[in-house]
């Protein structure tokens, strides 16, 4: 595999370089990167910001074009634009990403992990060098195919240039991404956000005011727990039964019937009554029959709320029934956006439905979990990524490339 097919007894480093040379070069880059990481640390790998990243990108592409145009016969350039270099660089990128997929990318107390920077691969020198090799191979073959354009090349160009564009714009543009969050309280305008990476305050060019926060919930579920450990016994905590009036369930020798279910209620003595006030909690009246003895009991359970105690039902020495806290179905914030020019308008944002204002994407992020549906606080995230159009162009080129591949993939293989 290491020898070139056409010249069976080629010596190492004789041109053209094949897999052995490619592997050695990539391995050399990897070792260099790890040595730099161990000696310099990754703090030296600063992320570039505008306009330096744009300048670097333009220069890089110009160099690739120049290399193809005037130096395509140089052994190194020839090697970079051939298959052994491409496949080797894909393998090495895969290897480094695999490290990322195994070692958690969070603070570590392992000496080797810290020394080689294995817990922050994306900013690791080794990764930057290998990605540099990968992109250079990708860039050179892309330039080559564009200059030799034909309709057969469409799929190739869409896939390769799309990937090149998405990766270079994504990597070089990462320094320009701003992610801030802002906590809004009902009827209070706010324009001071917090940068999520640095924790520094950021003044926005517009203010936002929370008019209303809304939360819809699913019905709570019924769970069987162990009296001693408090753990959910039923199906390892999965697939619990949703509580709904009139339903019957069976659990390990018990028949359970939901006689009554109140989504908003409050305890009065030993029973629950329907109320409509802040902090009311869901409650259900259960009838529990022990199948073996046919004995039955009736009582209330409730998951409680920030204002009310929860209530469980002990059905034997071993087991109790509890109601789980309802899961959020949908939460949204009605916002009023106030600009410097005195313009104001309302909009509603929710998870998966962001709003765009002045190049910022505005997302629903969080709320006061303890207060649940009575929360009067909404946490909003704002993201600004000026490189997004370039990245999306790359992504959509690859999407069209994938359709092309699906359609004519077979023919591509048959050509050989």
């Amino acid at each position, binding site marked *: *595999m290491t020898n070139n097919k056409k010249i069976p007894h080629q010596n190492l480093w004789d041109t053209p370089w094949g897999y052995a040379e490619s592997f050695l070069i990539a391995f050399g880059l990897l070792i260099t990167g790890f040595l730099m990481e161990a000696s310099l640390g990754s703090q030296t790998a600063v992320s570039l910001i505008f306009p330096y990243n744009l300048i670097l990108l333009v220069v890089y592409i110009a160099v690739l074009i120049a290399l193809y145009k005037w130096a395509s016969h140089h052994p190194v350039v020839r090697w970079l634009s051939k298959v052994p270099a491409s*496949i080797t660089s894909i393998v090495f990128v895969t290897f480094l990403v695999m490290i990322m997929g195994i070692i958690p990318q969070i603070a570590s107390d392992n000496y080797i992990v810290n020394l080689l920077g294995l817990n922050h691969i994306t900013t690791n020198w080794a990764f930057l060098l290998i990605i540099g090799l990968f992109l250079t191979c990708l860039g050179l073959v892309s330039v080559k195919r564009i200059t030799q354009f034909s309709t057969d090349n469409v799929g190739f160009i869409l896939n390769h240039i799309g990937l090149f564009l998405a990766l270079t714009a994504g990597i070089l543009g990462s320094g320009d991404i701003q992610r801030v969050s802002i906590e809004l309280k009902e009827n209070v305008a706010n324009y001071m956000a917090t940068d999520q990476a640095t924790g520094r305050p950021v003044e926005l060019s517009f203010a936002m005011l929370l008019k209303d926060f809304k939360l819809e919930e699913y019905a709570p579920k019924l769970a069987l727990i162990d009296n001693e450990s408090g753990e959910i016994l039923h199906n390892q905590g999965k697939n619990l039964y949703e509580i709904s009036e009139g339903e019957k369930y069976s659990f390990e020798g018990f028949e359970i019937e939901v006689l009554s279910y109140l989504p908003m209620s409050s305890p009065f003595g030993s029973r629950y009554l329907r109320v409509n006030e802040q902090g009311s909690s869901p409650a259900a009246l259960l009838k529990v029959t022990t199948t073996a003895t046919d004995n039955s009991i009736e009582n209330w359970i409730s998951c409680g709320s920030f204002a009310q105690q929860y209530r469980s039902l002990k059905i034997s020495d071993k087991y109790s029934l509890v109601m789980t806290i309802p899961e959020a179905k949908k939460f949204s914030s009605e916002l009023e956006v106030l600009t410097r020019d005195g313009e104001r308008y309302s909009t509603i944002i929710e998870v998966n439905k962001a709003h765009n204002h002045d190049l910022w994407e505005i997302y629903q992020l969080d709320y006061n979990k303890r207060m649940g549906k009575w929360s009067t606080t909404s946490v909003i995230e704002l*993201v600004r990524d000026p490189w997004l159009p370039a990245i999306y162009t790359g992504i959509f080129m690859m999407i069209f490339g994938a359709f092309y591949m699906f359609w004519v993939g077979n023919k591509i293989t048959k050509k050989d």
Partner: protein
Amino acid sequence: MTWINFPLYSGLVAVFFLIGLAVLGYSYKKPATFKIATILFAIGWGVLVLFVVQLWLELERPPMRTLGETRLWYALFLPVIGGLTYLRWRYKWFLAYSVLMALLFLGINYMNPETYSKTLMPALQSPWFVPHVLVYLLSYAVLAASSIVAIKGWYDHYKKQPIQSTLALADNLVYIGFAFLTLGLLFGALWAKEAWGHYWTWDPKEIWAFLTWMGYLIYIHYRHFHPQKNKQALTILALAFVVLLVCWFGVNYLPVAKTSVHTYTQY
């Protein structure tokens, strides 16, 4: 509440599929009976479609959230892939394999009954949910099929039989699977931007999805430029599928799992 009679439906499907497989086996002796096998497969598949449609309607959400629900989709897609592959390349063994795999997935679901909870967290309530998951399921099913072809290739290789046509089938499946894999990855990126504010966050599931993509990328490039090196190609294909399996359910057992947002097995 288990509202729907899964054992009844899966039992019916199993009866049609098993008789169909028996008839298919017999058709190697008497080719005329093959048509009966395909009719039986079609009826069994129709029953399965009916079940999925009912489940979707009853849950009021796409049944694609839990691992059990994704197995249901494999059971649905595999016979289709087997059928289409048969129409194109006439491999009976491959049709039999895909029907058997569908039965296996139904069997696993039968052994692990679910109560089919209706809850769907807000982050999953998006128009991207269905296309993102569907193209991934299709891609995994096709790529799984390609590895079965690879096993056939190994077998033929050791029996010293020609394997070029087997590898050509593997190539076709990989190209289709890879196209879907690319779409799944990119739809995921576009959705992530909508839901979480960034298109790529190096979430463990994303990392392994990317690795799977890279694995098949290596295979495609290697095959394209070294079409004669069969054994190496088969090895790459096998390794790529191992990565896919890690991505599909192995991620949950890795030390990185706790930092992932794709924990769909938890409910």
